[in-house]
């Protein structure tokens, strides 16, 4: 009986250690994921929120970022988006937003595209039946 109890105690200790280590592993694995729905982010369509306390939130698409925006609005210092053409990071206030029939991130059916250059945006509008949309990150 005493031997059984010892085995049960060992099992419980092992289980707790496993769970603690598992939880820490999970924390690492969420680092490169969208802060709204956890999906892996594609650098070309990522949106970054820099918060007042210096921390950064990243989102897989404009769709996810704009869904999170109302909740985080008061804490956001800067919104950074990525130019689809060059892959360069730019401030959202300087970016041009276009909605077209092309889906960039399928799981949220994101159709909003980001451009730094007006010519690139116009080309996209003509080619994919797009139209201009307002910056969704205006406070």
């Amino acid at each position, binding site marked *: 009986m005493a031997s059984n109890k010892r085995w049960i105690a060992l099992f419980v200790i092992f289980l707790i250690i496993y769970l*603690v280590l598992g939880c820490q592993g999970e924390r690492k694995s*969420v680092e490169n*994921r969208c802060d*709204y729905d*956890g999906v892996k982010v594609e650098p070309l369509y990522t949106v970054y929120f820099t918060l007042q306390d210096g921390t950064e939130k990243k989102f897989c698409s404009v*769709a*996810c970022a704009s869904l999170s925006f109302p909740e985080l609005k008061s804490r956001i210092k800067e919104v950074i988006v990525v130019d689809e053409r060059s892959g360069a990071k730019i401030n959202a206030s300087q970016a041009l937003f276009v909605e077209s029939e092309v889906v960039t991130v399928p799981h949220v059916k994101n159709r909003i595209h980001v451009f730094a250059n007006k010519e690139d945006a116009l080309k996209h509008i003509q080619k994919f039946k797009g139209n201009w949309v307002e910056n969704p990150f205006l406070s």
Partner: protein
Amino acid sequence: MILNALSITMIFIGALSALLAIWGGISSLILYRKWERPSRPEEKTSLEDRSYLILLIMVIVLLIRLINWPLFYVTLQSFISDIEGAMCIFGVTQVRPGLTRFLEFLKPVNFFLIGGWFLLHLLDRATQTSPLMKRKLLLLSFLSLLVLIDSLGDIFLILGIAPESLVSCCTTVTNISNRPTRTTPLSIFGPEYAHSLQVLFFITHIVLIGFVGLALTLWKTFLRQRLILGLLFLFSFLNAIFFLLSQIEVFAPAMMHLPFHHCLYCLWQYVPDSIVMYLFFILGTFSVGWGFTTELFGRQGEAADLLPGYLRKIYSFAFFFLLASLIMLIIHLLVG
């Protein structure tokens, strides 16, 4: 159809169990009707031999159907990469939403009924006169019908999921503010509904564990009271509703570190050991129910004498599994 090892396995299991369920269901119904009719000894022996064959085959079929529930989700998980727009199982369920929702409801019901039937079968096998045989056969014919529906559902679903289907995933459904899991508790508890749900779940879960523990301690009194066991089963069902609501609204977002995301399929994906926690919770809750169904159908002849010992074992399992799921949840919330 998306062709992979799991989808082929599902179709094979579905076809096999559908055929055997038809045969087993009809045979057990015929045997049930003949069982206690006066007959000659050689006819009685022939009936018993047939019943053993039917039980042997159906036990294997039912065991496969028990495994089928997790296999169903593993198969759906394997389809994610082939469905455009799916990031978790939720996306796959959107290809054939009606049928998938029906199967997602039917499978736990089947799991519970099959588990309950197995416990009766074990109890009956421990006796020398098989006093539960007639009930077992009747329940088996009913279970066969459910197994048949489930198996056919699996086959139609797997065949009906076309590769490259375009769906919207969980983000556009589970994260919206007018989701029913939010609006219902919001209308009852007000803006602080998340906190209320959390507290309510911990209270009901701890009370349930307490009651099961009490029933085990005072088993001579408690485990003979059908009404008490029935109420305990209802309470475990209520606790399961609070578990589900609090998981969707509070615990899953906390465990995933995604405060706006309320998808349980994503939780299983991002926090895989939460599956073990869910398994413990399901087995704990179902064990409470199985205790009640075993008492309900097992109090007959020689089996009635063995029943208290069996009930103690079943409720010990319930106690262990419910406690284990609670400990896992607490560790996740504290460490994660």
